[in-house]
């Protein structure tokens, strides 16, 4: 009589073991941190929908449209994206409040695409302490590429420093030995650019005859231009914001002076810089780009632009499609989607960072052909390639190869 219970116990034990083993292996593939379930992935975002920088609010709208479309097409690996986007009015204390709300109240898996250098600076320490990914930031500061100190933070835009280096490469190749004059805005933005071009020039940095800075508060930079002309440089480089970029091009044109002119990508807008400066003054100006310009007719039949336009037509019919911020939001959201797809069923914060740090030659429809997104555990700068372009008869013409610059970690 004793045999039976013993047998039963053994059977049950064996069965339990077997069950435990199988269920273990079944669960092994699916791992979640807060914000991810079998049906949903929660993504947090903060963008200035109101306040002084509200023009950038469309970045958030474009991102929302991309995620909405992904959801309508069945989601990512069967999970819908719950994109929670808050307004911080470009005020850092508000960014902190909203970031804490996202992490502690909404319990998002990660934050994505937060806009602005001060906003991201304000929450970087907090998010890294909480070990919540702070992915793909809409700011070009170089400091986001610091995986050693901030392993949970990764930028997205090509950094100002990389862009500066790319101009250096171009100058050394196409205009060797020329005298260079640089005008830069006296803040982190201008200084990042300056650092980049000087590093890029290396021992050729002595060909810089003057580094002239101006304050954001100055009404006009005409005097700086006149002062620089007196030194008779061959190349003028402008690391300026749009208003001052237009002023500089215009003044140089008025002086009847024809140096080689390079203007930062930030100020390369046809509508807000080239047009006010006067197309005849802007003729021949050189800059660099990484994304397609929706207003440029050369992309009329481009598949990427068609996808972009169909997205806008369906989900954001009210926006102005030539607004370059839309393209930024669109490209960033597609990068995020690619990372989430790669993460598969292992939706832990650690794995998200691992996937984000191992993107290999990812092509996004809104980027220029040949520009690829790549990251590694020591390189947290997703885009570090640009292509040179020249302003010719009222629009930008791309020329030359894709120039890459990895500043590394």
């Amino acid at each position, binding site marked *: 009589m004793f045999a039976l219970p013993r047998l039963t116990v053994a059977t049950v034990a064996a069965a339990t073991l077997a069950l435990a083993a199988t269920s273990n292996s079944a669960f092994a593939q699916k791992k979640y941190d807060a914000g991810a379930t079998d049906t949903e992935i929660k993504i947090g975002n903060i963008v200035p929908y*109101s306040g002084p920088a509200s023009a950038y609010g469309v970045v958030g709208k474009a991102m929302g449209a991309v995620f909405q479309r992904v959801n309508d097409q069945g989601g990512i690996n069967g999970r819908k994206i719950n994109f929670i986007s808050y307004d911080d009015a470009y005020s*850092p204390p508000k960014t902190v*409040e909203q970031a804490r709300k996202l992490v502690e*109240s909404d319990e998002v898996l990660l934050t994505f695409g937060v806009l602005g250098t001060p906003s991201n*600076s*304000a929450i970087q320490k907090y998010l890294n302490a909480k070990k919540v990914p702070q992915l793909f930031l809409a700011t070009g500061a170089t400091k986001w590429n610091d995986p050693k100190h901030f392993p949970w933070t990764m930028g997205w835009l090509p950094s100002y420093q990389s862009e500066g280096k790319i101009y250096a490469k171009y100058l050394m190749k196409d205009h060797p030995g020329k005298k260079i004059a640089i005008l830069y805005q006296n*803040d982190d933005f201008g200084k990042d650019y300056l650092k980049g071009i000087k590093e890029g020039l290396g021992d050729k940095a002595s060909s810089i005859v003057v580094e002239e800075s101006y304050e954001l508060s100055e009404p006009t930079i005409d005097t700086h231009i006149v002062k620089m002309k007196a030194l008779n440089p061959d190349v003028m480089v402008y690391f300026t914001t749009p208003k001052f970029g237009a002023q500089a091009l215009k003044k140089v044109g008025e002086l009847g002076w024809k140096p080689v002119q390079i203007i930062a990508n930030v100020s390369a807008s046809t509508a807000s810089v080239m047009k006010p400066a006067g197309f005849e003054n802007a003729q021949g100006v050189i800059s660099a780009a990484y994304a397609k310009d929706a207003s440029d007719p050369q992309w009329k039949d481009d598949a990427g632009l068609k996808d972009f336009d169909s997205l806008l037509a369906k989900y954001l019919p009210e926006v102005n499609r030539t607004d370059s911020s839309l393209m930024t939001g669109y490209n960033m959201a597609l990068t995020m989607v690619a990372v989430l797809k790669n993460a598969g069923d292992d939706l832990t914060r650690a794995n998200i960072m691992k996937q984000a740090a191992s993107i290999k030659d990812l092509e996004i429809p809104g980027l220029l052909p040949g520009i690829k997104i790549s990251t590694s555990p020591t390189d947290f700068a997703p885009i570090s390639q640009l292509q040179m372009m020249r302003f010719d008869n009222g629009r930008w013409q791309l020329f030359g190869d894709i120039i890459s610059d990895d500043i590394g970690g």
Partner: protein
Amino acid sequence: MSTIQETVAKTDAAAVDAPPKKSMALGRTTSLVMLVALLIVPLFVKNFVIFQLTMLLIYGIAVLALNILTGGSGQFSLGQSAFYAIGAYAAAILIEIGNVNYVLTLPIAGIICFAVGFLFGFPALRLSGVYLALATFALAVAMPQLLKLGVFEPWTGGVQGLVVTKPDAPFGLPISQDMWLYYFTLVVALVIYIASVNLLRSRSGRAMMAIRDNEIAASAMGVDISMYKTLAFGVSAGITGVAGALGAIAVQFVAPDSYTFQLAIALFLGMVVGGVGWLPGSLAGAAFIVFVPNIAEGISKGLSGAFFGVLLFLVIYLVPHGARQGAIYAETLLHKLRRS
């Protein structure tokens, strides 16, 4: 002060009733209920809500400071964000560069802002009403740009701002940083609140209110107008500076863009919504500026500004005297209930 002025002031005090208590503070029971609520609520909510409550108290202090200036001495200011910024930067620089204990930074920030406010009060003497509002507005607009100046960059961090380390609870208390900071802020807020109520009840406070009600009459009574006006400015700026310092510690970050004139407008709004001249209303006003934008955003993201405007309009239309009106209404209702 001369003896004559002294006597005048004294007879003045005896002849006129002290301002009714209700006009400045809550009744004892209500105060206790509020205090207990402020003490207990954090124990039951998430850290994020505690952080919001801390910000509520901090903005409450800043609104209270404006209330002393406007409600007390009748001077307008749209420049409180500038004093708030100075306080915040003073604390941030002292903590991060000077390695000063965060508790000590509060009085230092307060003193610096008191000095700045007192000095600003002198040119302000020549201006009154809307002109003074504009002059202070200029201060608020200038401040973020001044903070960005390259000259100060080694200390202020320029546009990048400064990251501030959040203090841990002392004596190994087993509570979170957020909770500790909340109670710390609560203590500071209570001290400032009680001191402010007493200030307005004191002779100085009466002098300020006399200036507010009728400047010529006050000066005929022997009140030193310029002294009390600048004093009001100094005290208000000093308290705002303490709020700014607390804000920097709670947010853990200071940057020029944090202290734009929008903050000054928000504080002004908080004062009006809370009830001008009614100190407890400051907390209600602060609640309005902290929570209502979130509510508006919850209603519609694209039209959050418009909904905020609608809510503000409703408040002004329904309770033009702010939270004070609501409080008085509630009290009469309670009395009626008790009687019936």
